C-alpha cells in the first residue's frame, strides 16, 4: 500500500498528517503504530518549521508512506534547503545526553532511536528528503 500526500507547509498540517498516519496504521493493525507516528510527526514538524522559518509557506511538503508486509517506509520532503551535511554526520555520534537544554532539536535523535533506518537525500527539484524505515508486525499475526 502506498499513500502520497501534499500539504501546505503550515502548522495545521502537523496534526492532520499525524492523525492520518495513525488512522492508516490502526486500519492496518500495525502494532508499532505509536512509534512510527511519533517518528513521522517529528520529521513533518521539522519540515514545516523549517519551511516557515525560510518563508516558504506557499510551497507544499510531501509525505510518502509505503507499507509492505513486514516493513514501513516513510519519506518527508520539504523545500527549506535541507540539513547541513556536518549535522547529518554528527547525528550518528550524538546522544540525548550530548544535547543542550534547548526546547527544540531532539526530533532527529528520537527518529534515529525509534526507527531501524534514517537517511537524507537532496532531490533534483531542490527538495530535501528525510527517509525512515522500520520493521512492522501485524496485530494478531505474530508467530
Amino acid at each position, binding site marked *: 500500500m502506498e499513500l502520497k500526500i501534499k500539504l501546505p507547509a503550515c502548522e*495545521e498540517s*502537523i*496534526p492532520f498528517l499525524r492523525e492520518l498516519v495513525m488512522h492508516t496504521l490502526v486500519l492496518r493493525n500495525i502494532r508499532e503504530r505509536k512509534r512510527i507516528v511519533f517518528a513521522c510527526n517529528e520529521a513533518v514538524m521539522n519540515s514545516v518549521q523549517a519551511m516557515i522559518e525560510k518563508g516558504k509557506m506557499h510551497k507544499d511538503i510531501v509525505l510518502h508512506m509505503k507499507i509492505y508486509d513486514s516493513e514501513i517506509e516513510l519519506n518527508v520532503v520539504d523545500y527549506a534547503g535541507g540539513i547541513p551535511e556536518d549535522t547529518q554526520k554528527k547525528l550518528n555520534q550524538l546522544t*540525548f*545526553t550530548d*544535547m543542550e537544554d534547548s526546547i*527544540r532539536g531532539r*526530533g532527529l535523535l*528520537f527518529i534515529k532511536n525509534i526507527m531501524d533506518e534514517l537517511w537524507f537525500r537532496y532531490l533534483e527539484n531542490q527538495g530535501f528528503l528525510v527517509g525512515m524505515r522500520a520493521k512492522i508486525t501485524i496485530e494478531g499475526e505474530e508467530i
Partner: protein
Amino acid sequence: MSGKEKSITVKIERVEVYEKISFQGNLVYNSIETVGNAFDKLDLSLYEGFILNMSDVNYIDSTGFGMFINFTKKLHARNKKVVAIVTDEFIEELFDISQMNLIIPIVKTEEEAKQLLKSKISTLKTIEEYFKR
C-alpha cells in the same frame, strides 16, 4: 483539512509540601508558551518538590520533552526534586529512549510520587551529569 492542534490545559495544585502540575491534552510544539507561562508562575522556593502529572497527556512530541528538560534544569539548580506520573506505556518508553528517566523518575501514581519525593535520593543523575558537563 482539520483544524489546529488541540491546546493543552495546565492545572497547578498543592499536594502536601509538593506542587503538582497536571497536563491535559497534547504536549506539543504549540504548547510551549502555555506550559512555559505555567512554569514561570511557580515560586520554586515554596515547595520541596514537584510532580509532573502526565496521566492525561494524549500525545507528546520532542518539544514537550524539551520543555521538561528546561524546567528540570531550573529545579536541579535550586536543589528541588521532580517526579513524573506517566501511565501511558509509550510515553514511558520515550522517557527511556531519551534517558530523561535518569533526571525525572517515572511513577504510575500520585502516592508513589510522594513516596519518591520523600526519599533521600529520587534521581539517578543530576542535570549536569545528564549533559556530561
